[in-house]
């Protein structure tokens, strides 16, 4: 079945771009799909089924590749690339200077910026809003439940920061220490698996604060009429990345041309306005309207208060750390 669609797609001159679905399908179509369809004279199909590393691996190893470009995490590109499952990014087509240093690697290049930050119920904390990792874990000063991501990312970093680890010595993450801190929240801890869940918990007032990606947080702020607030303070700057599965049906050249097309400032601006995904190309910054700067992770003020996820560490340790995190959370 998968092989059959793959051949059919190759014949029809299609380019299949995979992201995490939901509103991202429509928004990617508008910002990136349609303009590239027109200029390259082929159909861009946005597939929202989620580029899980395991699925890319299964596809490439069975030579049934049906995806051309995947939009996953930067560390995923590093990991899968090192395992020989990706085409290298062709930097004669894609411009590596259009992303910030460190965000263009051999097998992937940053597609958007997102930041794992703190959202809180402003009605509860009108006088002194929570601003730091320490505040997230201080249930005396900031009483109420908190929703953290049910996984390593952001949850472990913030727990360690609250536990007194210096920002520059966060990595390698001490998962055991982090989980101990997380579990110290006791009954005040809720762990979310999908960011829509975190948004719902915030909006319904079921949690006093939550850590989640800034695009989803911006929806919570908007839909709650301002009762939910968000801060970039102490948030974790992360990069999604484009990557091309080895032997992709449309060919590496077209895939790279598509990636290059998404570096266009107007298209990135469009996606930011529609979806909240932070632009990777610095040339977008002057184009962003003032009233949208509150959720722009790239302003000088916001940059100064974020720390950057260590994708190199995640590329090497993500699986191991995830299993350890899950087991320690479950253990008594």
């Amino acid at each position, binding site marked *: 079945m998968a092989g059959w669609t793959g051949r059919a797609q190759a014949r029809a001159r299609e380019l299949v771009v995979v992201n995490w679905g939901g509103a991202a399908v429509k928004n990617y179509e508008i910002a990136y799909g349609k303009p590239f369809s027109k200029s390259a004279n082929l159909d861009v199909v946005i597939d929202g089924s989620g580029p*899980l*590393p*395991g699925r890319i691996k299964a596809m490439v190893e069975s030579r049934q590749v049906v995806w051309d470009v995947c939009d996953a995490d930067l560390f995923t590109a590093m990991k899968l690339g090192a395992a020989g499952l990706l085409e290298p990014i062709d930097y004669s087509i894609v411009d590596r200077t259009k992303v910030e240093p460190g965000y263009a690697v051999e097998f992937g290049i940053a597609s958007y910026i997102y930041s794992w930050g703190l959202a809180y119920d402003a009605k509860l904390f009108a006088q002194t809003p929570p601003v730091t990792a320490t505040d997230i874990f201080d249930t005396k000063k900031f009483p109420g*439940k908190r929703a953290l991501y*049910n*996984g390593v990312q952001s949850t472990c970093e913030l727990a360690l920061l609250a536990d007194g680890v210096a920002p520059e010595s966060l990595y390698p993450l001490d998962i055991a220490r982090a989980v101990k801190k997380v579990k110290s929240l006791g*009954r005040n*801890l*809720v*762990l*979310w*698996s999908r960011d829509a869940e975190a948004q719902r918990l915030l909006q*319904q*007032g*079921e949690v006093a604060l939550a850590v989640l990606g800034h695009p989803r947080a911006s929806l919570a702020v908007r839909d709650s009429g301002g009762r939910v607030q968000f801060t970039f303070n102490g948030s974790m700057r992360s990069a999604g990345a484009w990557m091309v599965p080895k032997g992709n049906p449309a060919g590496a050249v077209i895939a790279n041309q598509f990636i290059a097309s998404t570096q266009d400032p107007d298209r990135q601006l469009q996606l930011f306005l529609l979806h909240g995904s932070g632009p990777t190309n610095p040339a977008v910054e002057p184009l962003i309207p003032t009233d949208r700067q509150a959720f722009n992770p790239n302003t000088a003020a916001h940059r100064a208060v974020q720390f950057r996820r260590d994708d190199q560490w995640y590329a090497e340790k993500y*699986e191991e750390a*995830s*299993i350890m995190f*899950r*087991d*320690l*959370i*479950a*253990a*008594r």
Partner: protein
Amino acid sequence: MSEVARTSRRIDPAQALVAPLALGLLLLFIVPLLRVLWLGFSEPAFGLQNYVTVATSPGVRAMLWTTAWLSGVTTVLALITGYAFALALFCAGPTQRAWMLMGLLFSLWVSVLIRAFAWVVVLGDQGVVNQWLVETGLIEQPIRVLHTPTAVIIGMVHYMVPLAALPIFNAMQGIDPRVLQAGRSLGGSPALVFRRIFFPLTMPGLLSAAILVFVFSLGFYVTPAILGGGRTIMIAEFIGRAVLDVPQWGVAAACATLLLAITFALMALLARIADLRTVFGGRA
């Protein structure tokens, strides 16, 4: 049905009718299932290491323990509630009984997802119950129930009560009323008749219900995921995450095999206690 089968020996129509389904099950269910079981011994390398992980990893063991005790508590609570409901059904008049049965079956038909979200609305800190308690001044702070094991148990018991009540009611209906009359006529008080005659006669139904509810409880997926707030992880959710989140297919397959083995063992036990067709209402 058994009459028909006995009279026409050459082509059993029942078997002929079931054949396509059996073939479909074999190809679409049994074969993939065997492949999953095989993963438990072959992923990432051939051997028993996945079973060693299941037996020794503190996280996996804690998860198995959570699954067992939540299912146990759910079974006990569902049996008590189910028995009371079955007894009420048994004592009710025909019209009342029809309405009660309809109510029971109706709750059985509502999707498990919708029921779990309904409990979110009821139990949340800002939920119906807490808001009312706070507004009436009975409590100052909302009671934390949602996102705790208690919430998971409430959701699971709610789902399981019909499954407990029906086999018990079935057993009650099978009791010859003359036995009870005899007990009464021999001077037994209603309480004594219930304790010495009625209750023992419903034991097979109660046991079947217990096993049935326990087996179903072991496999709960949606309810703990929604009501447990990511903290209370049972085996089904664990398997789901081991397949999708952290690729640990071998351990996931080992857990699935374990769940399947426990289920089969309990169903075999159930078959020894009671006629399975009676339990599932095939011969009510």
